[in-house]
C-alpha cells in the first residue's frame, strides 16, 4: 500500500520533472547550451497563470478558467524565454563556455528578483500603485483553487490519487504526444533534428538556424509553463524561489535520461521522481525522510554527472567543455 502510494507520488513528481527537463534537453540538443535559467521559466509560468486568473477571473473557480490560465502561463514563459535567448544568449554563441553559464546565473537571479519585487508592485520603481491587487510574492502566494481538480481525490483501494495528480500526468502524456508529432511529422521539427545533427550543414541546406533555436526555447518554455500550472495546482501555493530547486532536479533528470535526447528527458524525469519518492518513503533512520530528500536528490545529480554523464538513453554529446 505504502509502495503503491509512493509510486503515485513518484509518477506525479516525475511528470513534473519530465515536463521541465524537456526544455533543458531540447536547447542543449541544438546548441549545447545548459540553459541554467530554465527553472525560472517554470516559475514565470506559474506566476503567469496566477496573474491571468487575478486579472480576468479573480474569485472564479469553475474549470473552464483553467485552459485560459494555461494559455496565460505559456504566453508569459514563452515571452521571457524568447527575450532571454535573443538578448542574453545569442550574442554569446561563440564565446567560451564559461560566459553563457555565468549569464544564465545572472538571468536566474534577475528573474527571481523581478518576480519578488515586481509582482505586487508592477510599476516597480515609481510608487506603491497596485491597481490589480496582486499579492506580494516575497512569501508563498496561494494558487487559485479550481473546481473538480483542487482538493479532490479518488481513493483506489487505500491509495490516494489527487485529481491534480491526474492533471500533471495527463499533461505530460499530451505534451509528449504533441512533441512526438511535432518532431517527427512537421517540417520545422525535422529541421530541428537536422540542426541538432550538424548546424553548419543545416544552414547550408537553407534552414534558418536562428529560428530553429528560438523554436527550441519556445518548446521548452511551453512545457515548463504547463509544469508551472501543474505545480500550482498540486502544491496550492507558489513562490519566486520555486524555480531553482525544480530546475536543478529537472536538469538532473535531463542528464539522467541522456541530455539532448527528448525521450530521455521524459524517462529521466519519471525515474528521478520515482527514486525520490521511494527515498522519502523507504530510507530508514535519521538520514531518511523529507529533511534529507534534497540531499539525496543532489547526491543523485552528482553521481549521474560523474558516472553516467551520457545518461540512460545516451546523450548526443557527452560533455565537450
Amino acid at each position, binding site marked *: 500500500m505504502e509502495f503503491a502510494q509512493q509510486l503515485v507520488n513518484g509518477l506525479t513528481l516525475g511528470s513534473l520533472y519530465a515536463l521541465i527537463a524537456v526544455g533543458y534537453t531540447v536547447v542543449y540538443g541544438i546548441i549545447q547550451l545548459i540553459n541554467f535559467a530554465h527553472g525560472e521559466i517554470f516559475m514565470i509560468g506559474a506566476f503567469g497563470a496566477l496573474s491571468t486568473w487575478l486579472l480576468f477571473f479573480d474569485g472564479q473557480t469553475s474549470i473552464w478558467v483553467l485552459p485560459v490560465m494555461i494559455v496565460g502561463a505559456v504566453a508569459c514563459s514563452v515571452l521571457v524565454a524568447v527575450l532571454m535567448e535573443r538578448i*542574453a544568449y545569442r550574442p554569446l554563441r561563440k564565446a567560451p563556455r564559461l560566459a553563457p553559464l555565468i549569464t544564465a*546565473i*545572472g538571468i536566474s*537571479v534577475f528573474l527571481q528578483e523581478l518576480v519578488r519585487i515586481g509582482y505586487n508592485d508592477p510599476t516597480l520603481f515609481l510608487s506603491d500603485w497596485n491597481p490589480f491587487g496582486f499579492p506580494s510574492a516575497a512569501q508563498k502566494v496561494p494558487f487559485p483553487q479550481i473546481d473538480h481538480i483542487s482538493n479532490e481525490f479518488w481513493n483506489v483501494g487505500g491509495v490516494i490519487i489527487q485529481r491534480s495528480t491526474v492533471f500533471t500526468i495527463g499533461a505530460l502524456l499530451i505534451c509528449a504526444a504533441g512533441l512526438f508529432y511535432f518532431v517527427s511529422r512537421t517540417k520545422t521539427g525535422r529541421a530541428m533534428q537536422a540542426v541538432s545533427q550538424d548546424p553548419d550543414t543545416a544552414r547550408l541546406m537553407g534552414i534558418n538556424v536562428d529560428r530553429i533555436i528560438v523554436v527550441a526555447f519556445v518548446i521548452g518554455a511551453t512545457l515548463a509553463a504547463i509544469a508551472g500550472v501543474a505545480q500550482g495546482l498540486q502544491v496550492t501555493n507558489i513562490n519566486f524561489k520555486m524555480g531553482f530547486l525544480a530546475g536543478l532536479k529537472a536538469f538532473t533528470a535531463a542528464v539522467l535520461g541522456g541530455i539532448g535526447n527528448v525521450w530521455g528527458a521524459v524517462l529521466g524525469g519519471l525515474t528521478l521522481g520515482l527514486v525520490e519518492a521511494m527515498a522519502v518513503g523507504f530510507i530508514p533512520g535519521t538520514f531518511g525522510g523529507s529533511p*534529507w530528500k534534497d540531499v539525496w536528490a543532489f547526491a543523485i*545529480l552528482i553521481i549521474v554527472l560523474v558516472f553516467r554523464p551520457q545518461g540512460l538513453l545516451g546523450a548526443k554529446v557527452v560533455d565537450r567543455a
Partner: protein
Amino acid sequence: MSTSTLSERRDDVLHALREKYGPLAPFLAIAGGAVLVVSGLLSWSHIDRVLQNISVRFWPAGIQIYAMVLGVVALVLGVLLLRKTPWLDPGRGLRATGTAAVVFVAMALLAIGVTTDGLINANEGGWVALVGAVLVVAAGYLTAPVDLDVHAWPRLSSTLEIVIIVVALAALLFLTAYTLDMDDSWTFFLLILTILGVVVALLTAGFGEYIGFIGQNNRRPLVLAAFLVAFLFPFTQGGSSANMSIAVQILIFAATALGLNIVVGLAGLLDLGYIAFLGTGAYVGAMLSNSAFATVGWKPPFFVVMLCGMVVASIFGLVIGSPTLRVSGDYLAIVTLGFGEIFRLAMFNLDGNTGPDLTNGPNGIPGIPDLNFFGFDFGETHTLAGVPLGRFSNYYFLLLLLIGVVILVFARLNDSRIGRGWVAIREDERAAEAMGVNVFGLKLLAFAVGASLAGLAGTIKAHQDTSVTPDQYIFLESAFLLAAVVLGGMGTVAGVLVGATILKLLPEKLREVNEYRLMAFGLLLVLMMRFRPEGLVPSKRRQLEFHEEDEHLVDLAQTEHLEEAK
C-alpha cells in the same frame, strides 16, 4: 538582419560626419570641458537641502565639484587630441567621459526632481552642464578611432615611476576615505558615477594599459605601497566603526574570492559551491570556540583552530574536486553546485533530531567570543598614534595579514611550475597531458589550495561575526563570489580586490536601493558577459582567451612579454 544594416548605416553616417567635422573635435571637447567646469560654479538648485548644498554660485560643493572633475578630464583629453600622441586614443576617452557626463547630469537632474517637488527646482547649473556633456559626447564621436601604438610608451626613470605609483595610491586612499564618508545616497551614487566615468575614460583612452605597464615594472614598490595604504586606512576613520565594519566584510569576501580565483582564474575550473569552504572554516571555528553552544568539547588555541579549518576545508576541496577526473566544463560546475547545496542542507539538518548534533541546525552556533592573541583582546578598543582603533579595526588588521598571505600564495603559485601547468591545462587539456602535465593532480591541487584559504578565512569570520548559521552559505553567496572574480578579472589579484569591493560596498552605501540590489546584480552579470567577459582588470592571457581574434590585444600582450624579459 535589420539591426546589422542599421548599424552599418549608422557607421556610414558617422564616417561622413567625421570626414566633414573631424578637425573640430578637439575644440568641441575643450569647449564642452570648459562649459562643464563653468557649470560647477553655477547654482544647480535653489533649494539648499538637496544633494548637500548646491545652491550657491562660485562655491562648488558635492556634485558641482564632480561635474568640474569630468570637465577637467574632457579638457585634458581635448588638448591631448590636438597633440596627437601615438599611444593614446583620446577620442574613445572623450566618448566615455561624455557619456558618463550626460548620464551624470541626467541623474543629478533626476535626483533634484525626485527629492524635491520636480524639475522646477533645478537651476541653470544642471542645464548648462548638460550642454557641456553633449558637446563632449559629440567630440568623442567625431574622432575616428586610433590604433594604439604601444611601442611608443614614454620611458620614465624608475624613481619617477615609483613616485607616480605612490601618488596614485595616496589619491586612492584619500578618495576611499572621502567616498566612504558620504552619507547622502544620491550624492554617493553620483560620485561613483563620476569615478567610474573618469576611470573608464582613462582606460579607454589608453592610460590604463600604460599604468598597468608601469605597475608591472615596479611590482614590489607597488605591492608595498598598496599594503601601506591599506594599513593606514583605519587611521583615517577617527575611531568610527561604521566603515570599518564594511571594510572587514570586504576583506573576508575578497580573501575568499581570491581563493576562488585560484580555482576559476588560474586552473580554469568553475566552482559554484565555493561558499561551502568558507562555511566549513566558519563551522570548524565555531565548533572549536569557547561558545556555550559549541558542539565539540575540545578548545584548542586559535592557531590550531585555523589549521583545523584549513585541513578540513581542503579535505572537502579534494572530495569536491575529485569528479574533475571524469567531468569538466558545465557539468563540473553543476557538480560543485550540488556539493555546495549538500553542505548547506547538511548543516541545516545536523541538529540532533535528523542526524547527529553538530551544528544546532537552523539556529546555528551563536555567542562566539572575540579572538584573544596572547592577551590582545580583539573585542576591545586600543589606541595607536592617538587614534582609537575599535573591534573592527583589530579584525581589519588581522584580515589584512590574511589577505597578504592569500595574495602571496596566489602570486607565487601562479608564477611557478604549477602555474604554468594550470595555464597549459586551460589552453589545451589533452596536449598538456600528452606533454606530461599531471592534469588531474593539478586540478585537485587548485581545489585543495583554494578551499584551504577559504577555510582559513572562515575561522576568522566565525569570530568576527560571533555566530554561524546555515543561511549564510546559500548558493547566491557562491554566485556573489564568482561575480567578484568575473567582474574584477579572472586570474588577477587586483581585479578580485576591485570586484569584491564593488560588490560589498555598493549595497552598503546605496541603502535606498537595497531592495533592487540583487536584481542589479543579476543584470550586471549578464552585461559583463556580454560586453567585457574578461572583467575590469583582466590578466592579459585571460583576455586573449576570451578574444581570440583581437590583433591589438595580441600585440599588446606580446610587447609586455618582451618588456618583462628584458
